């Protein structure tokens, strides 16, 4: 009997619920029974409520079982796991699970399907097709493809990627750099982590294309220290890509050099801000730089530097492989293409949902997410990380695109969606937003460094039981004034956007602050 191929993910969200133990149990139990097993450690499909998701290759396609614990393995084998037989944990053919079938996976097309560190597997699934296409083009033509695709920065700022590249390409310098911002610190986001752990060659390919487009020969990936598995996988992927000739002095025999280095961050949220990240890469405290000069002109070590988020780079290979129009045809308005969104927090079916822009929060939270994990009514979701707003139900039907969200003062950010049920206290979450800013502020500008601490104090006063000494309306006004100063006076988004969650909580959920009437003076 030939060996049956079984997939057990190596994504850290699977490891955190015992995937290694499941893999070990499968190997031990199959060996004991004399069953031939070909175990592949794939990336995650992004259906985290089903992790550990074990898949078995069958003539009908890959069949999914989950969530599997190590203790379940003997019973699953008894039931005929290796032939894809029925079982209480069986979900049928993986591709037909509605959560996956309803998605538009462009960037995440390979995610969970391939062995992340197999170059052969990557190539068999359209890998490096974009790089090969780029090598046949002049640098200006590569930039034009990215411009035409409508791709905008997926880190959160949504700046057109092609324009950034064009600026760096036009700059004259002996040394240029390509830097990937993989300091994915926003709570509720994990698409960068999944990419680095589950499809690392895609990021390497995207960065190499950027290097060809702008004339850079050196690159860095700055990865947060909270992601040790991503760091290890990226290091191994860079080594393998270099050995195979995709990186190094002579990329695929083109005579063009590109050397890539993985750098480990050290737990400072503000280093996700691009200039603070550059300082950190230079070996300094991660303090925000004043702009201008733009990093595209004077970036790393003072040289012209392309800085993009993991997902921005990861979107590029497909654009080059299939053409700008293919990507641009997805999406709405000025938000083109797809966004890998992340459903997190109090959600029944949390995970990665890649859809074209234009999907609504309600569809994401209910059609995909299945409502709250606790079964209680959903009260709100914070979209766009710790600096994003809390959206009340009246905003759940907005199309998720950069402009529609900006019109109501909300942000799409990096696509993280943190769901809260009706037990959430928005005054507490608002105070937390200020606390987090106080902990993570780099300290360079006063509105952020001092304003955040004053913000914690003012919100605490508003939350305190009423007493003759506290004048609540006055404190609320003080908080609004403070937020105004932070929004307009901070050097970067850390201080400048911390008021977003605070004010959205205050405006949409005044009852949580002990305020009777809705107060909608500011967005």
């Amino acid at each position, binding site marked *: 009997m030939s060996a049956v191929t079984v997939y057990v993910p190596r994504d*850290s*969200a699977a*490891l*955190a*619920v015992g995937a290694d133990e499941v893999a070990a149990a499968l190997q031990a139990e199959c060996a004991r029974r004399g069953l031939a097993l070909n175990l592949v450690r794939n990336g995650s499909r992004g259906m*985290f*409520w089903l*992790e550990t998701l074990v898949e078995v290759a069958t003539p009908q396609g890959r069949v999914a079982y989950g969530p599997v614990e190590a203790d379940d393995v003997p019973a699953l084998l008894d039931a005929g796991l290796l032939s894809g037989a029925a079982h209480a944990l069986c979900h049928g053919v993986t591709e037909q699970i509605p959560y996956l079938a309803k998605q538009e996976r462009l960037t995440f097309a390979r995610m969970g399907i391939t062995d992340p560190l197999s170059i052969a597997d990557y190539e068999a699934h359209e890998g490096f097709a974009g790089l090969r296409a780029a090598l046949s083009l002049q640098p200006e033509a590569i930039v034009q493809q990215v411009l035409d695709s409508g791709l905008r920065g997926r880190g959160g700022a949504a700046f057109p990627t092609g324009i950034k590249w064009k600026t760096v390409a036009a700059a004259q310098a002996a040394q240029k750099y390509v830097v990937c911002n993989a300091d*994915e*610190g*926003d*709570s*509720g*986001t*994990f698409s960068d*982590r999944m990419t680095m752990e589950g499809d690392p060659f895609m990021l390497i390919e995207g960065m190499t294309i950027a290097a060809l487009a702008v004339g850079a020969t050196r690159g860095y990936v700055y990865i947060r*220290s*909270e*992601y*040790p598995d991503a760091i290890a996988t990226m290091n191994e992927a860079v080594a393998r890509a270099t050995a195979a000739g995709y990186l190094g002095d002579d990329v695929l025999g083109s005579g063009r050099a590109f050397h890539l280095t993985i*750098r*480990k*961050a*050290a*737990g*400072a*949220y503000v280093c996700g801000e691009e200039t603070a990240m550059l300082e*950190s*890469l*230079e*070996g*300094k*405290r*991660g303090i925000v730089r004043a702009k201008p000069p733009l990093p595209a002109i004077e970036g790393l*070590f003072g040289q012209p530097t392309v800085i993009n988020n993991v997902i921005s780079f990861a979107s590029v290979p497909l654009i080059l492989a299939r053409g700008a129009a293919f990507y641009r045809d997805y999406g709405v308005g000025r938000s083109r293409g797809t966004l890998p969104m*992340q*459903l*997190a*927090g*109090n*959600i029944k079916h*949390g*995970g*990665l949902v890649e859809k074209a822009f234009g999907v609504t929060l309600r569809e994401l939270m209910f059609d995909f997410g299945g409502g709250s*994990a606790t079964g209680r009514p959903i009260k709100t979701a*914070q979209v766009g990380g*710790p600096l994003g707003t809390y959206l009340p139900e009246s905003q759940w039907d907005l199309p998720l695109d950069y402009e529609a969200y900006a019109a109501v003062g909300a942000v799409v950010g990096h696509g*993280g969606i*943190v*769901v*809260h*049920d009706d037990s*959430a206290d928005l005054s507490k*979450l608002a105070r*937390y937003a200020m*606390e*987090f800013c*106080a*902990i*993570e502020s780099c300290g360079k500008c006063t509105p952020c460094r001092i304003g955040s601490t004053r913000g914690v104090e003012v919100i605490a006063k508003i939350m305190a039981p009423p007493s003759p000494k506290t004048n609540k309306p006055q404190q609320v006004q003080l908080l609004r004034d403070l937020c105004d100063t932070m929004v307009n006076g901070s050097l970067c988004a850390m201080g400048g956007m911390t008021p977003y969650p605070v004010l959205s909580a205050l405006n949409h959920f005044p009852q949580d602050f002990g305020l009777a009437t809705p107060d909608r003076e500011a967005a």
Partner: protein
Amino acid sequence: MNPTPASVTQAVLARHIGEPGALLPILHEVQDALGHIPREVVPQIAEGLNLSRAEVHGVVTYYHHFRAEAPGRHVVQVCRAEACQAMGSDALMAHAEHALGCHTHGGHGSTSADGRYTLNPVYCLGLCASSPAVVVNDKLHARMTPAKFDKVIGALGADA
């Protein structure tokens, strides 16, 4: 002969000679080898990189990941960010503080009086769809509950 902090640091510095912006990689390697970055190696690193002691000290103290003191024998991190809060991480942190004899304040952690545990808050482990999440001695655990937490801590066994 056991390697001393000075000899470990010397070897790390030698590996990074000539590398641009090498301070963070150097500090990571020193901390990985020694468990922390002892004050005594700061002048040595400064000299090796032609920086002032203040610059190196400034970097060590700026980043949450670097520590100047040796941690407890087991390091426990509990995620405090929004997604984990939505799934009860506040209560889990309170449970952890009680169970380990540590208390946290703001972004700061602490070590238990017997030196067995260091408990640190952490702000996002990227396991936000499987909240709440914790790390115990570099091993990730998701969908954590107080009962599961006690089991994981119990499995650490007695100190050698």
